[in-house]
């Protein structure tokens, strides 16, 4: 059996190499795109935080008045309320942003228990008006220590004097392993609000917890109804739905990713099928000889599938390894406001059925010939 496979593979190196290359491309694409896809979906479906987000109804880039925070806090069914603003922080290159947010400190930390900060750091931050809390990976990148005076540039906000370079003190360093948590930075809204030149008393979003027993839909309707005719109408939804909407800004990435992956698969399949077709005639002759010698058709069929499986499998191993290496050594940066991309084990599992499908589809033609072949016609 192995000899049959070896014979077929070595008969035409070009075809074999072509097949491995096609399958490598397929799985490289699959590995990369699958990872992106999973990361996107994970960040949305991954945590059921129970948090609710209120944003401007028109779109999530429009601001809301900060007074909404207090009004919403008084709404029945609402617990801690915080707020957030996009700061657009960077240190050196504007292209290398990290997610920095002016927030209301105490309720924010209550709302996001995944922000793991030591009590001393927490206390210090809540005390320091110009203090920032820095996620560990960002602190490591910038080489910041607690107590350092640091400058963070804003892409968006000038201060009263026109300068967009904001000075802070690092009050504490925390770890946040949630999908959107890496490399974040938190500052105090009140200090930020007073210092900025325009946009005073506005926020980008409000975030709150529900009181026990409260229903998202019900609370959301009451809030949104109240502001419906206010000039700053709101949209209130669970954090998951909000994140999905947020990601949808980027042109429904998941769908694009899926389409790309499907296109990659189809292309690889066409190349594979074509490569198989190239050698169908020679293959038929070999099969005819083997049938004459007393080999069973099932054996030949198995060899045909095994051969394709082997080539596609080799390609899969190469492709997925390269994808993995790429993601590990050269993290994909989809912009600082998208979740981190990690290589997921699920990608490998998902690759398995794809591998089988590709192999079976690509071996369809030789397979058919093992069963239909007439010995004498093939030997002519």
């Amino acid at each position: 059996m192995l000899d049959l496979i070896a014979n077929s593979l070595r008969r035409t190196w070009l075809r074999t190499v072509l097949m491995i290359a096609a399958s490598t491309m397929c799985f490289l694409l699959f590995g990369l795109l699958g990872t992106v896809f999973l990361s996107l979906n994970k960040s949305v479906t991954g945590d059921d935080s129970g948090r609710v987000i209120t944003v401007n109804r028109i779109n999530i880039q429009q601001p809301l008045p900060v007074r909404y925070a207090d009004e919403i806090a008084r709404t029945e069914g609402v617990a801690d309320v915080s707020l957030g603003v996009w700061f657009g922080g960077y240190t050196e290159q504007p292209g290398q942003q990290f997610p920095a947010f002016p927030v209301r400190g105490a309720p924010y930390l209550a709302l996001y228990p995944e922000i793991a900060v030591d009590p001393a750091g927490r206390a210090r931050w809540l005390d320091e008006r110009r203090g920032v809390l820095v996620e560990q990976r960002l602190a490591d990148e910038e080489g910041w220590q607690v107590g350092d005076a640091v400058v963070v540039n804003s892409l968006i906000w000038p201060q009263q004097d026109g300068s967009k370079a904001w000075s802070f003190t690092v009050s504490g360093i925390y770890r946040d392993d949630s999908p959107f948590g890496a490399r974040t930075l938190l500052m105090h809204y009140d200090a930020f609000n007073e210092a900025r030149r325009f946009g005073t008393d506005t926020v980008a979003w409000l975030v709150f917890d529900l009181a026990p027993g409260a229903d998202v839909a019900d609370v959301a309707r009451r809030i949104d109804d109240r502001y419906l005719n206010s000039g700053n109408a709101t949209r209130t939804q669970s954090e998951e739905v909000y994140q999905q909407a947020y990601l949808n800004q980027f042109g429904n990435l998941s769908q694009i990713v899926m389409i790309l992956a499907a296109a990659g698969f189809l292309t690889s399949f066409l190349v594979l099928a074509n490569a198989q077709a190239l050698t169908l005639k020679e293959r038929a002759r070999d099969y005819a000889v083997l049938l004459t010698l007393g080999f069973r058709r099932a054996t030949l069929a198995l060899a045909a599938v095994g051969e394709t499986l082997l080539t596609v499998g080799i390609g899969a191993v190469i492709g997925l390894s390269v994808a993995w290496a790429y993601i590990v050594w050269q993290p994909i940066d989809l912009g600082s406001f998208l979740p981190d991309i990690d290589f997921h084990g699920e990608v490998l599992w998902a690759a398995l059925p794809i591998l089988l499908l590709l192999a079976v589809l690509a071996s369809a033609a030789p397979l058919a010939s093992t069963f239909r072949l007439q010995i004498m016609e093939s030997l002519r």
Partner: protein
Amino acid sequence: MPMAVDVDGVSKTYVTDGVKTPALNAVSLSVGEAEFVGICGPSGSGKSTLLSLIGGLERPDRGQITVFGQDLGALSDSQLIDFRKRHIGFVFQDFYFLEVLSVRKNVALPLRLRRLSRRQIRDSVDTALDLVGLGHVADKRTRYLSGGEKQRAAIARAFIANPGLIICDEPTGQLDRVNARQVLDLLRALSDRGTTVVMVTHDLVAADACDRVILLDKGRVEPAPRQQAHA
């Protein structure tokens, strides 16, 4: 004498693209055990067709073919494959090897279908290759053999599993006199060992090597076949 091959009233017509080509027309003949029979006739007279029917590669439209007492028509496709595996060896004019495999591996193919150890297979192959004088090229790829070497390798492949019947379609057609002689001697030796050999040939020298020659013309057996006693 018990018959190795019995062909009784066999007809075969090929239909391709709606065109009917009668290849064999009510052919009857028999071949005794250990007999070395030649089948001669002009091109297109149905010689290859007859061989493929006897070898169970195709089925006749009409008539019956019995090989070693087994009516081939009574066998299913997979039984037929099995029967071929156990009783029949083939030598084609065009050799037909798995080209990138070594001579050794090609010759070993029929043994792969049996429950034999690697060692047993290796020993048998070595013996067979020595017998056909190819021991020195055992590990060469068949693609690089000369015509005569290829044909001897093909014969080794045909007899390695000890089939009772060996069928050859113009085994000397592409060979020079010396090589043809070697091939004929091999077939003769097999026949002397008790193997039945049916060989199609154009070649008078080859026909001469046979115990008996059956003449085929336009799909029919010629009424007066040339008899020839062999020493």
